[in-house]
């Protein structure tokens, strides 16, 4: 099913249809995640998000000439207990 926003473990990916002009730069880069229908880009199922490297998600965002794609990486979970960076040097 096609969507305008999907979220997964790596973050949230969305397409703004007020800006999208359907030229398909996103489909050229990540055909497994994007399709063009009725002149706009749509996102595939959320499950597909986890198959894509986050670097590629940043690239597809930067490569959209209409600034229609936003990728918000999920902040890393806080570490449970931080250990000294250089143990044994005290």
């Amino acid at each position, binding site marked *: 099913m096609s969507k305008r926003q999907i979220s997964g473990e790596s973050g949230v990916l969305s397409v703004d249809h*007020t800006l*999208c*002009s359907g*030229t398909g730069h996103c489909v050229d880069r990540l055909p497994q995640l994007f399709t063009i229908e009725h002149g706009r880009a749509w996102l595939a199922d959320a499950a597909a998000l986890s198959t894509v490297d986050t670097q590629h998600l940043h690239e597809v965002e930067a490569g959209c000439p*209409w*600034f229609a794609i936003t990728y918000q990486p999920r902040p890393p979970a806080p570490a449970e207990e931080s250990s000294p960076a250089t143990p044994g040097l005290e």
Partner: protein
Amino acid sequence: MTDATTGRAGLDEEFEPVFQPYTAKADSPWQELAVDRARCPVAHSRHLNAVQITSYSGVKELLLKHEEFTGTYSTLWPLEQPLAVDNQVFSSADPPRHTRQRKLFIKAMSASRIGTLRTFSEELANRLVDDIIGAGECFDLASAYARRITEGHIAELLGLPESERERFLYLSGLFELSTADPASHSYQAEMREWQDTLARMVRERRQAGPDSDDLITQLCFAEHEGDRLAEGEVASLIRAMIRAGNTSTAAAIVNTVHALEAHPQQKARYLSDIDRLTLPLVHEGLRYDGPVLGLWRRCKRDTTIQDRPVRAGERVFTVHTAANHDPAVFEQSEEFVIDRDWSRLPSHLAFGYGIHHCIGMNLALLECEVALSTLYKRLPGLRLRPGFVAPQAPGPVVRNWLSLEMEYDREALEGATV
């Protein structure tokens, strides 16, 4: 000085391209471009003093390598020095300057926003056809219709005063002539004066306050990270928009009609189903004979295009119309076929590709669609005036039939009383 020859070390066996647009620009350059594309798709041209790129994959690769190739030396003229910073706008600006400018424009030029202009577009096209009918049975498509369509849209978008429109239309055409002869200074005084006029207009709009919703006023008061654009930069952005909006789209309309009239079977097919075929016709017109023949860029750091080395400092010329005729990408690539299924084809490169993808694309598509369908629906028996030979714009940058004299069956007009 970095001479283009420095990039040719080890490439002595390279073929010399046969395309010579400065001295022998052909009305139909497709054959010589096909020779270059097949034999030397990325090769140094002595004629252009630049690396000429003619394959689809080569042009697209360059457009994606925007960090290696800059437009700051102008994409329209092969300059030896970068443009003044205020004049680096759109495709002649690099990120982050380019990104900032584009973000300010993008909402106004988006498909959803431009879609709201459709009623205006249809009324303008119909009014112009009324004027053509009122004037007689022969008319020049370029001056009486296509340029009026584009000038009307740009003026509407920018809120240009009626008194300035005619002059702006004339001035926006000067760049096209100047690209054919970069060494000539004959247009520079007028183009500089135009820049001053626009800068004055920007100053006046700033003084008038932010309440008007025209694009010039919006740009005057747009803020990016707390800063407003300088007056000179706003003036350059507006000038680029008027220039590109007027000449390129008018040429797209005229070139498509020229192609359609040269292919009677395709024309008959179009007339049989205008509503369904207009959009694929527009894209085929842009692919087959788009308004941008080629554009200049300069290499910023050593790289390759299609594995051929290109050195920092070398000038590069991308031949967009050659890429759009590449048989590796388009079947029947040298044929004009108006019912291609564009949803299944790679995009043509008439609007470029990548971060510099033509920001006016949605406006251009709307104008072409409305202009072509209105013209062929309303003027029965529309045809080129027999014996008329259309003049082609000179130089390597532009494809534009400067005049296209046409006639139609006046007595067959709906409700005709003549």
